[in-house]
């Protein structure tokens, strides 16, 4: 692997992070209400009386940060799942993690588990973790080592199974609960404070650390497990790390914003069009661009129909879907 494609990719990665910086700095400036930045940052006014500061720091900034965290995590997890499963159609949701998270959220909503703090998020994270363990157990039960084929089949099946359970739980709820559940499934980044972000952050940081270590093994794994093994990759360990890292990161992201679609598949593929397939470039570029994209989509969701909110999952799909198709058609 020569250094030159890597070096050529570095400015693009830097560009993706520049886009993220622009998005995170711009998003809190726009919204349905005009605010004065001077007043928002005026320390002489008491915070309780300063509506501009409250809109900036309670409503907009946590949203932009949540969007950045969720977007970065889902895009990176998408890259890792596509590399692990050697399947370009894999998404962070392929192996049932988000279905597990959704099931947890649906159970919490329908059975009105009144959690003292954090609302539905802890239940979603619990559901995601259980799904991860079940899929892992299925994939390793009858096989020595780690079969990605069994993993994929088990994950897809579990996904369908959980989806049925989600419908069942929704069905036994009443109207209000069913509506609340449906709305949760559309994705929402109005986190109403920093607590959800801080709760998810440790898991995401650990996962991103794992991803950084995984970049080289994933490059070699893309040639097949045997080829990677002959080049000194501990295949099983790398696969296990990729599976747990990406799954738990996805669970954390979904617990913050709900199962927001499209990020985990559009962003990695778009990035590959820009920088090629070297994971040392694809991973950081996807993190930057995924975060920037979701921050921008959430800004659209906030202002498009203001004061009515548009679910952000609809925006990512409506903007992302056609854009991605256009890229595909143009490429051929």
């Amino acid at each position, binding site marked *: 692997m020569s250094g030159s494609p890597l070096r050529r990719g570095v400015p693009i990665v830097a560009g993706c992070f520049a886009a993220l910086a622009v998005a995170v700095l711009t998003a809190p400036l726009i919204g*349905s209400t005009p605010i004065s930045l001077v007043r928002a940052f005026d320390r002489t006014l008491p915070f309780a009386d300063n509506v501009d500061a409250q809109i900036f720091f309670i*409503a907009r900034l946590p949203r932009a940060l949540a969007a950045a965290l969720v977007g970065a995590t889902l895009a990176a997890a998408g890259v890792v799942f596509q590399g692990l499963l050697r399947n370009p159609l894999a998404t962070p949701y392929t192996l049932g993690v988000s279905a597990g998270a959704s099931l947890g959220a649906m159970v919490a909503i329908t059975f009105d588990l*009144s959690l003292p703090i954090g609302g539905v998020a802890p239940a979603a994270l619990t559901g995601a973790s259980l799904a991860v363990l079940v899929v892992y157990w299925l994939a390793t039960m009858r096989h020595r080592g780690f079969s990605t084929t069994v993993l994929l089949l088990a994950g897809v099946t579990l996904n369908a199974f959980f989806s049925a359970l989600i419908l069942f739980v929704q069905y036994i709820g009443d109207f209000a609960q069913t509506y609340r559940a449906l709305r949760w499934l559309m994705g929402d980044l109005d986190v109403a404070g920093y607590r959800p972000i801080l709760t998810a952050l440790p898991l995401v940081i650990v996962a991103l650390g794992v991803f950084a270590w995984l970049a080289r093994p994933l490059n070699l794994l893309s040639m097949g497990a045997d080829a990677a093994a002959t080049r000194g990759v501990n295949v099983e360990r790398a696969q296990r790390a990729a599976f747990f890292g990406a799954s738990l990161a996805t669970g954390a992201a979904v617990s913050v914003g709900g199962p927001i679609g499209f990020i985990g598949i559009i962003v990695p593929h778009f990035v590959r069009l820009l920088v090629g397939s070297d994971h040392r470039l694809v991973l950081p570029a996807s993190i930057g661009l995924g975060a920037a994209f979701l921050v921008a989509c959430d800004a659209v969701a*906030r202002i498009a129909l203001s004061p009515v909110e548009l679910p952000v999952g609809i925006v990512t799909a409506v903007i992302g879907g056609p854009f991605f198709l256009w890229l595909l058609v143009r490429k051929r």
Partner: protein
Amino acid sequence: MKSMAWLLAVVLVLAVRVDGPEGGPGHARDQHPQRIISLVPAVTEMLFAIGAGDQVIGISSFDRYPPEALTRTRLGALVDPDVERILSLRPDLVVVYGTQDDLIARLSRADIALFSYEHAGLADITATIRRLGDRIGRRDEALRVVADIDAGIEAVRRRMAGRPRPRTVLVFEREPGSLRGMFASAGHGFLHDMLDVAGGENIFGDVDRQSLQVSMEVLLARAPDVVIELQPAGDWTPERLARERALWNTLSGLPAVRHNRVHILVNSALPVPGPRVLQGIRLLADALHAGTGSR
């Protein structure tokens, strides 16, 4: 041949649907229904309020009131009416939502009379009670109930006249344990109308729909003087009530939070557009104009 069969099927369906949802052929209009099924909780309450409770033989899965109604057979609701059991009870009137096209078509085919209902504003509640009274032969009782409601509403209006009208957000849905997933009454519908009678100014009165999801930004920008949350009765211990109210303290900038005017009203009457609407309006009026901090 096949297309002919299709055509015939379509013609048959149309023929049945022609006489529409209200009343099927073969039921004389002057013959008052004795076996009524109501799939609409608000209308179930109306039936009992106008003294027709004994004629009610089936209710929806979501009925919670009045207590004597709860002994009746439950037969599904908006999305899952149990058509087989409805038919097996041999009703002579079924109260349905106007949007239940499929159910309306099937019951019409079975020659069962229907009373169709749609959610709307406060005035529609009394209009529905009157229409129901006419339909089941209890006109006088219905008019009495309507007169009581109208008089009560008028009394509340008079009591509120001249008082300041606090800018209020009426939240009817929220994720428990956090301030996320919040929905509030917008510029149409009975909740908006009830708030208006109770002497509150809906901060979303300008939004041309029945409800909207409230973002933190819009809530902070519109700065309500009073927050009222409606919770249908449930497992609400005083501890839980205090915990849920305390969540609002993160929005210390809202006048409602600063002046301790966040109210969580736990009452089964509030979200039902039925004969207990006056009770709901009085609860709202008390919350709006009580001193501070009461529930």
